[in-house]
């Protein structure tokens, strides 16, 4: 599948939410943990060899599951290949927790769910649609019933 690699590499150089050296292990059998500079930019996780300009690779963080593996490590697996996990080793429990938190929030889809939640809630409290003043009420991406299923967590306070 083709993708715009140059632009993605350029994206990897943008200021990031989170960047740190972590131990990283690929999903293949026999892969070992290697030290990588891991950088979270929008919904991509880039990983570099330390001191290299171009990332070795990128992981799009949509349709993935992040799990705490133990006190200092977490894994990322993609829903279409759930047994294949990428493992990340952190320096502390706290750092590990921060990464898990950040990655969970780093998907476009999870942001969309939050937006719909806020929009619905504001509307409920004020009777007004907060997006109307920006002229974006009708954008497909902001619709409540765009086929999206609100999870129980989203609707718990409604």
């Amino acid at each position: 599948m083709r993708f715009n690699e140059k632009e993605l590499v350029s994206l990897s150089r943008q200021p990031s939410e989170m960047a740190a050296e972590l131990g990283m292990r690929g999903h293949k059998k026999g892969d070992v943990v290697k030290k990588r500079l891991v950088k979270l930019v929008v919904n991509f996780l880039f990983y570099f060899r330390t001191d290299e300009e171009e990332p070795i690779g990128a992981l799009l963080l949509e349709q993935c599951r992040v799990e705490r593996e133990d006190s200092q490590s977490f894994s990322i697996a993609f829903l279409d290949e759930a047994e294949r996990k990428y493992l990340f080793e952190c320096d502390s429990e706290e750092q590990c927790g921060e990464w898990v938190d950040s990655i969970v929030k780093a998907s476009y889809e999870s942001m969309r769910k939050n937006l719909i939640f806020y929009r619905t809630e504001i509307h409920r409290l004020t009777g007004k649609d907060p997006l109307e003043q920006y002229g974006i009420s009708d954008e497909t991406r902001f619709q409540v019933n765009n086929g999206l299923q609100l999870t129980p967590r989203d609707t718990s306070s409604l």
Partner: protein
Amino acid sequence: MKLNERSVAHYATCDSPPDKTGFLFKKGERNTAYHRRWFVLKGNMLFYFEERESREPIGVIVLEGCTVELCESAEEFAFAIKFDCAKARVYKMASENQAGMESWVKALSRASFDYMRLVVKELERQLEEIQEAAGGDCVGAGVGGLQGRSKPSRRNQVSRSRSGASSSSSSSSTSSLSSSSGAPPMAVNYSAQRSLQDEVQLISDCSKENGVAWSKPAVSVANGFAEEASSYAAWEACSDSGNNSGPGADGVRAPPVPRRRRGASLESPVSPGTGCFSKLHDWYGKEVEELRVQWLQSK
């Protein structure tokens, strides 16, 4: 560079609802003919398939940091997706009709993660204001749960709110500011004009909380154009209109302190945007020079 392609392709075809789908003509890279492809926009990813029924996409365009412009072309209803990085490719596309073109340009210019984040942050802020105004006790435990959830997310959403807006707003501002060698691209000036004003308002509200955000030099030039233009407009809007936040709201809440993230040991070894900052510097230098000339001439 590696990419988790299989999972990316899975995202294209899984049952999460797309933001837009339809046929578009896409100009090939080597073969410069336009090919009709089925496009699926999900979030900040624009997938294209050979046929509507195809099971796997041929390719994907990651839409982060791009601008979308109408363009003069032999092809009718044409527009372009442009990126601001060295040797970036320009994706030339064409729709089958005017409505399709307008609709796609609008959808694509708002497709970035940064833009979504900007809107979410704004709504989050509004909700907090409403809750504070209503008082803690009567709004209730249900919404209190939201408080706990929303606070941590703020920290991670601080730094890049502005560039998302600029990727959409610069679809009009870039075309008026940049000097292109060929025919200048037409400004996107239908309903995008009004929403640009409103999106600028969004930026101004966010920038109040962000404090440090405007001083960051690390932006690409395209974003820099829009950023500077919109920041002037934003600050003017702030001083003129009183409608962006309720009375007293400005002083009430301390803005969230952005996480310290600048240490050389944490950031990527490549200092981001260095090349771009000097471009930005040159551009402003030229602008100052022109203003000086105008002023001297007017004396």
